[in-house]
């Protein structure tokens, strides 16, 4: 048994946790980073953002190769080597995870592999296969993240019922796949399996997939899924599921009918649950809300003055980049700079085909809150760049404050929207006006011009809108 005494212990080595540990170390704090996974990087790196994006890259290649035949270039049917795909995917994870471990070493951050359990507001016990160790700390940051929710009604104990974790392992390519939940995780993984050859069906209880995003931004994704998926059942619920030979029998119901379908595999993507249990929080003053998220104030401090919490475990948007920003705020406060996480602009990106991205205020939110806005749109049909790769199913729009023309929100759908949204986030954060955006010279021919054009449309001076 060993004991470590540190200024800061961070529980969870995901994008929130490792950022917190490294930033704190650069401030001169002694830091221990605790994670039960020997591969550092958390869900995002091992079982989330990164592997899913690798697979989505392959999906995109397959789709583009197919559509190239319309432009005079024809490829043969792609051969899928699952072993090789998995090896490639794992190599990316290993490289990034190794990178995190290397950075930890470089910054003298002590990495402890094991499960962290609070003994008190100043002591953490770390249980690992090699035994127990203790960390006494002045401050702790909890960044233990979340896991895919698997409601007990869907948990048949069968490998045919998967969460995102198993789906990313890519055990096989099921002939028929049902995705329960048309949120971003379900839609992204549905896109992957569909490109690899599965017949994908999506069932969504809400009236639309990707609910919450503005309807005009979703439209191209709906159209894509209607074309490439076997079915998209909205306003439909899964009544029950049971194993049926080598398939899963699913009973579906909407307002008008109830019916059964058999699938080779089912992906349950109905949300994520915080990993706030089994952390020993009952031995601290940390409080949870009724959904199990850790309660924090705007400084990200919990009810226990020595303990902060960041990332998925405090709820809100469960996104890696939100956690990374929160890591910096928590460390700022620990080293004595009282910064706050207030009115943050957190860009959201859905890596479907095409991608959907937004930052700041959405039309939906403005409507719900009764905020008066003006909207300026630039459809990609008028973008030369979009025409060159035959994807004019995009749209760039600005949400503006009447009177001041200040940019309050930006929404984009289209190929590469995830990259384009960065300029939108910068514009909002800088308090830029539509005129500012219109005055900036954008390179031609690029998709970034659509932001400038949307601003010019607002003033009626667009060359192409």
């Amino acid at each position, binding site marked *: 048994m060993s004991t470590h005494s540190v200024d800061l212990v961070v529980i969870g080595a995901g994008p929130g946790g490792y950022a917190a540990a490294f930033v704190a170390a650069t401030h001169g704090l002694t830091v221990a980073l605790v994670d039960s996974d020997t591969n550092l990087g958390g869900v995002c790196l091992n079982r989330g953002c990164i592997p899913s994006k690798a697979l989505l890259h392959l999906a995109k290649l397959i789709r583009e190769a197919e559509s190239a035949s319309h432009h005079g270039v024809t490829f043969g049917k792609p051969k899928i080597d699952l072993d090789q795909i998995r090896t490639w995917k794992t190599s990316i994870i290993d490289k990034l995870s190794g990178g995190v471990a290397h950075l930890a070493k470089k910054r003298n951050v002590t990495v402890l592999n094991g499960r962290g359990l609070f003994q008190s507001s100043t002591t953490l016990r770390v249980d690992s296969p090699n035994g127990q160790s203790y960390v006494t700390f002045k401050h702790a940051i909890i960044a233990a993240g979340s896991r895919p929710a698997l409601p007990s009604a869907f948990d048949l104990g069968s490998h045919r019922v998967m969460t995102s974790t198993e789906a990313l392992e890519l055990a096989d390519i099921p002939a028929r796949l049902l995705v329960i939940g048309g949120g971003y995780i379900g839609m992204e993984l549905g896109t992957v399996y569909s490109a690899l050859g599965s017949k994908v069906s999506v069932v969504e209880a809400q009236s639309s997939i990707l609910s919450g995003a503005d309807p005009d931004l979703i439209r191209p994704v709906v159209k894509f899924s209607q074309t490439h998926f076997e079915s998209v059942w909205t306003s439909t619920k899964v009544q029950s599921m049971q194993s049926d030979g080598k398939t899963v029998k699913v009973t579906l119901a909407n307002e008008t009918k109830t019916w059964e379908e058999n699938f080779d595999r089912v992906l349950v993507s109905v949300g994520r649950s915080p990993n706030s249990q089994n952390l020993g929080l009952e031995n601290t003053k940390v409080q949870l809300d009724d959904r199990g998220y850790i309660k924090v104030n705007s400084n990200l401090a919990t009810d226990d003055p020595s303990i902060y919490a960041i990332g998925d475990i405090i709820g809100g948007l469960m996104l890696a980049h939100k956690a990374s920003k929160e890591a910096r705020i928590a460390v700022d406060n620990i080293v004595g700079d*009282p*910064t706050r996480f207030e009115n943050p602009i957190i860009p959201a990106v859905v890596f479907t085909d095409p991608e959907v991205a937004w930052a700041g205020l959405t039309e939906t939110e403005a409507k719900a809150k009764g905020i008066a806005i003006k909207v300026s749109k630039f459809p990609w049909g008028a973008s030369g760049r979009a025409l060159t790769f035959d994807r004019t199913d995009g749209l760039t729009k600005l949400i503006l*404050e009447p009177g001041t023309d200040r940019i309050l929100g930006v929404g984009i759908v289209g190929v590469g929207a995830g990259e384009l949204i960065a300029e939108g986030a910068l514009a909002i954060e*800088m*308090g830029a006006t539509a005129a500012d955006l219109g005055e900036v010279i954008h390179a031609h021919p690029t998709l970034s011009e659509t932001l400038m054009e949307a601003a010019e449309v607002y003033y009626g001076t667009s060359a192409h809108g």
Partner: protein
Amino acid sequence: MEIKLPHLGDGIDSAVVLSVLVSPGDMVTKDQTILELETDKAVAPIPCPAAGKVIAIHVKSGDTVSMGTLVLSIEGDSASSTATAPVASAQAAVAPVSVSSAPTPTPSTGPLGSYTFESASGAEPPASPSIRKMSQLFGLDLRRIRGTGNGGRITTPDVQAHLSHLQFVAFQVPATTPAIAAPTKPATPALPDFSKFGSIEIQPITSLRKKIGQKMSDAWTTVPHVTQFDEADITQLMALRKKYVPEYEKKGIKLSVTVLLLKAVVDALKKFPIFNSTYDEANGQMIMKNYFNFGIAVDTDNGLIVPVIRNVDQKSLETLSADLSTIAEKARTRQVSLEDLQGSSFTISNLGSLGVGPFTPIVNTPEVAILGLSKGVTKPVVIDGKIEIRTLLPLSLSYDHRIIDGADGARFTREIIAGIEQFNEEYLKGN
């Protein structure tokens, strides 16, 4: 050896040199007062941390100085070579801060005080992330800063102008506070030539005297004073004291009546918190204080000073006795630091040792009440129809009639008397 200014006290970033009391060539002794500084709180003497001969003086009257400012160079007596001034926390060994006698920059833009950002969409004022972070660290409300960038965006120069403005306003307080500005002072009429009537002698007054004078006339013209007189029977209190004196003496503590009175008064203050408040007339509010720090008016060779005993309510009689002796000793040796003079919430002026009766103390603004103690007198008193010999202590409570009415003044006085006459013996035991 270079003498730099020590830490001036919490919340005091700078002070103005009122007078320099030494000249080049003078021999100074350790702890001799070399400077008098004026802050918005008080005038404070700055003692010399070491003995020697003054070679050069680096500041002059009117300079604004802060911690680390180089004030004096002396030579000789190199036994004590570190430049630490015993006043306050004795941490003078820091980089010198430039002496500034330039006036505070006036803001280039017009009055900003009333500006508040409003947005129909409820958005925060437009400003870049770095400026928003800066505002959090400085505790600035960006909504009070007028942005001059495109779309009203707040730029770095806007923040700088705002800070200059705040500083300007902060230093303008005496001129702009209506409470002080309101009664326009009639111009002092020219004095007659007294030498016509006989021989006269002109004597300079110290800057401390000037400061006391200014403070007293400010308090007198601002605060409508009421003084409530009464007497407390301290016969029982004195007997109690006598009973416990030997026990305290064993610990080397001189148990005075004054120390017992502090305890009785703080208990009464807790029941009448308005006497422990400040009237913020400019903002139309009262500032109630949850701490009980007593200013103790002390007579010194140079005039009145009011050092502070903190957290009287939380201290044992033993600690309070020690605090009282420390104050007296510091006042006698001119070692009172600016920090010792700050933060009182109620003041006690004890003229008992001078053998006089009731008087009308002047409220130590911005406090709202002051208690004067006079000499305890042995008198015949009628108790239950019989004449008894008792010792009575005259009390003179002055208070600010703007926020405290006569009935409360009377009730508070009764509460103090009750606390004295039925003094809680537990305080004497529990040390």
